[in-house]
């Protein structure tokens, strides 16, 4: 018995006695190189502490709200340091503007207030994200010299400014009522699950929920853990493993790889970006569910899309609907004739591309999608009544075509070294040019068996990822419901298994480089 007791004591000594307080403090401080992400060990511990206190404050509305806001600001501080003051600026300005909007009577005053909100929110976004981009563009047009300014890009600024704008525009459109007080608004803008990487949660969806008692139903509990565990699998297993062991290398230095490897790299990237982004969104949705909040889904098997229009109904839904409701419709939508509709669509996608990053490749990516949407709209008009377009094989064919268009566009999205000179000649396409040249001039399909055999773990994960993506919705819904009905012990077990797998993947040896093309 003594021996057992001593063993237990030793266990705690080695577990906690070896903790270095300085390292612990360092973990809690802002570190630009390691933002706090949901799939990190640190977040697991922080969330455990958070959820214990949150549960204790469940029925104490004001302390609970204060606590969540404080935790969210800390969460943001871990990723962007002192720039959390930007959230405070956006919160305070839009709260005050919202109050004035409610009492303002004249149309002009209301418009001016919206313009003020836009100027503040988009002004911050433009300064922090786009100053150097526009500076370079101006320099390119006028020839005037431009030296890049050393501006820090605060994490998630594109998300929380868009969220806050939805509040002001919805009040202006009289779709929602303003919040009761500043703290409630701060809660909405800073709510940590979606703060740094979305989804973009609308004020109209979220605000009504904060005035209800916190209740986590059995469904929400099960679904919350389902979203977190599957999100972890997508983000920390599939995406992280295939990117470090294959995809990043191909995109970083495509000339070292044959055409077939470049193509597999492009397919791999399609899965990587989906798993990374949707996995993170899923975790955000899951965390919110465990706190009693429901977010709309952000991704709906986007590669099953039968057209580009369909793709944008399935990919980053919170952004595409935001752009539709607040940008496309504000530009006039489809109310001013066909030509204006197409133009509005194109402008929306161009700006949507720019939203993803301040670089030419994102703008071109947006333009490509904009053009594809216009072509699809024209096709829909032309093909009305054709029997062809209702056939099943046609849908399969169109899914394949859409998928390849999207993958091609991702190649543009992933190659940031495209320069303005690319628009005027063949030079300046950077690694994208090399990738396309390798695929078209040095394809070497005979290498496929060797490539698959050598990178079998990567190829297996890519295959699993795509198979899981393309299984019928009804089946995945059944799996989710089966999981939800499981006892709590199964949730614990599933969480443990997933974390153990992630630890194995995170510390696994990376795949050594192999040449197939000499």
């Amino acid at each position, binding site marked *: 018995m003594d021996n057992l007791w001593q063993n237990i004591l030793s*266990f705690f000594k080695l577990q906690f006695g070896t903790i270095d307080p300085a390292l612990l403090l360092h973990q809690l401080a802002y570190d630009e190189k390691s933002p706090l992400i949901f799939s990190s060990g640190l977040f697991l511990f922080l969330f455990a502490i958070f959820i214990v206190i949150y549960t204790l404050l469940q029925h104490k509305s004001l302390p609970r709200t204060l606590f969540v806001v404080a935790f969210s600001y800390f969460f943001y501080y871990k990723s962007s340091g002192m720039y959390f003051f930007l959230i405070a600026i956006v919160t305070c300005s839009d709260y005050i503007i919202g109050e004035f909007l409610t009492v303002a009577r004249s149309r002009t005053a209301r418009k001016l207030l919206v313009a003020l909100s836009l100027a503040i929110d988009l002004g911050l976004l433009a300064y922090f994200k786009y100053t150097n981009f526009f500076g370079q563009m101006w320099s390119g047009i006028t020839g005037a010299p431009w030296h890049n300014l050393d501006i820090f890009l605060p994490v998630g600024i594109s998300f929380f400014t868009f969220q806050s704008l939805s509040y002001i525009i919805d009040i202006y459109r009289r779709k929602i009522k303003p919040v009761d007080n500043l703290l409630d608004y701060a809660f909405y803008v800073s709510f940590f699950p979606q703060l740094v990487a979305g989804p973009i949660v609308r004020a109209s969806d979220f605000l009504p929920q904060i005035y209800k008692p916190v209740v986590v139903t059995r469904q929400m509990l099960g679904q919350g853990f389902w979203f977190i565990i599957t999100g972890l699998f997508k983000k920390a297993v599939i995406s992280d493993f295939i990117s470090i062991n294959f995809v990043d290398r191909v995109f*970083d230095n495509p000339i070292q790889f044959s055409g077939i490897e470049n193509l597999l790299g492009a397919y791999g990237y399609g899965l990587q970006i989906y798993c990374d982004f949707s996995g993170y969104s899923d975790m955000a949705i899951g965390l919110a569910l465990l706190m009693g909040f429901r977010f709309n889904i952000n991704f709906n098997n986007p590669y099953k899309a039968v057209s580009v229009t369909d793709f944008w109904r399935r990919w980053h839904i919170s952004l595409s609907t935001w752009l539709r409701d607040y940008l496309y419709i504000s530009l006039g939508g489809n109310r001013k004739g066909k030509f204006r509709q197409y133009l509005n669509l194109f402008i929306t996608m161009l700006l949507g591309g720019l939203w993803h990053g301040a670089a030419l490749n994102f703008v071109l990516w947006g333009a490509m999608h904009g053009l594809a949407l216009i072509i699809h709209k024209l096709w829909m008009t032309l093909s009305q009544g054709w029997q062809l377009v209702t056939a099943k094989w046609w849908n399969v064919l169109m899914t394949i075509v859409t998928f390849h268009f999207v993958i091609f566009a991702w190649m543009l999205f992933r190659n940031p070294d495209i320069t303005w000179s690319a628009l005027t000649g063949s030079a300046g396409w950077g690694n994208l040019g090399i990738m396309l040249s390798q695929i078209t001039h040095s394809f070497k399909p005979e290498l496929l068996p060797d490539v698959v055999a050598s990178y079998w773990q990567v190829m297996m994960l890519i295959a699993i990822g795509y198979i899981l993506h393309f299984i019928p919705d009804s089946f995945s819904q059944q799996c989710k419901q089966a999981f939800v009905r499981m006892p709590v012990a199964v949730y614990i077990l599933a969480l443990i298994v997933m974390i153990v797998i992630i630890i194995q993947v995170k510390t696994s040896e990376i795949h050594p*480089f192999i040449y197939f093309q000499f």
Partner: protein
Amino acid sequence: MEKDYLKKVPLIVLTAIFVLLAMYWIPPLAVGGWHMRKIDLLADVRSDSAVNQLIASDSTLASVIMASDSTALNDDKMPDSVPPVLEGSHLTRDKSGKLITMEDSIINAKAEVTETRSGVTSIIDMSNGAPCGMSSFYNALAMASGRPVRIAVIGDSFIEGDIMTSKLRELLQQRFGGKGVGYLPITSITAGFSRTCKQTFSGWTQHKAVDRTGYVDTYNNITGNYFNASNGAWVSLTGLGGHYPLAGSCNSSSFYFLGGAGSGYVTAVVNGTDSTYFPLSTASTVGHATVHGNIKTVKWMVRDPGNMVFLGASMDCDNGVIVDNFAMRSSSGHHLSRVPASTMNAFNQARHYDLVIIMYGLNVAGHNNSAYTAYCKTVTAAINNIKSNMPGTSVLVVGCSDREERTSTGWHTMKGVLGLIQAQKRVAIDCNVAFWDLYSAMGGEGSIVKMVRNGEASKDYTHITYKGGDRIARYLYDALMLGYDNR
């Protein structure tokens, strides 16, 4: 109202954390060749020294660990950076009593007599004044204003696409004069993607020393490439000055072929206008045709080539420094030992080199230590071939770069890399040539990880990008200039 389950959330999360913490005690598992990594949720906040202190001071703890975790701790205690002891080498102790290999003791002794410059890893010359030592090159550099000084950098994919050499060339040309990208094989995988030369071609059949079949040793040469041509085959070179301005143009261009009594001819079109004819015939083992002028673009085209064998074309200067990049993917330099003496000699007469830099290793270094006996033998034979047939040319062996692997304790230099560097040092000692420790110059362990983070190296934690090549070129340039200034 539905029943509330919020309280279950902390219960689930805390139970999972507790179980995961307890899993720290699971002994290491191995299934097949796969080893399960340690589950240590607190790894990021745990101090290694505290673990060791606690183990030393607590006998119960020690016994628990010994019983459950002996393999893991033994592994952890094994320092990764201890240079392996090579087969046949002798251990000795340095001034501080530290155990070092004999190679290191020679290297250290040589290093002491070399004046050092802050932050520069110096070149250690072990030639004892022989012509293959660095002084031949430094003397040539001193005369660079009156004649071309050529450097051949022979390596693998690490410098493919003129990575590293483009910047080294630029730096040397800025100080000693010169322009042009030097020699290029007629075609290569990276042709068309280089930052220093736009290379287009048509009508050639390539043979590479790394090809499994079809490479005939009779035609083997220092470049590791030769080509057969169809009638009208051509290659065009255009200097690109966008990234490295001095690469944009040159004073002369040559076209190289192996000797033979051909009846065909080759034409050179300079800057799209002037055309010059040369017969494809030479008494020498290596023939060449040369055009002069302010050349931005040159197009070489062969007519009636028959069975003649072609090598490459160059963009050179009449004086100053020329740096040729002989990179071959997947090579470890084996072909150099097999180049016929007459070809080696003739190529050096056609294109005299003052310095040959041998830069291999990535395709040899493995995860584990090995004695690299076979590798040492081949490189020694290669260097001896160069020394015998390129008299008066300095030879510099560059040690393997940092290449890292991920283990449960993070990123570490592959043990095989450290062993290889020792082997390369020994080759340099045995051949009485100079050695430069690239691994140390980069910053040793962790340097390639830092470079990946800065976009200077690829995510295979092995290869470098142009940006990384520029950094390494600067290190090598500094080392060369330190030697030159102290000559």
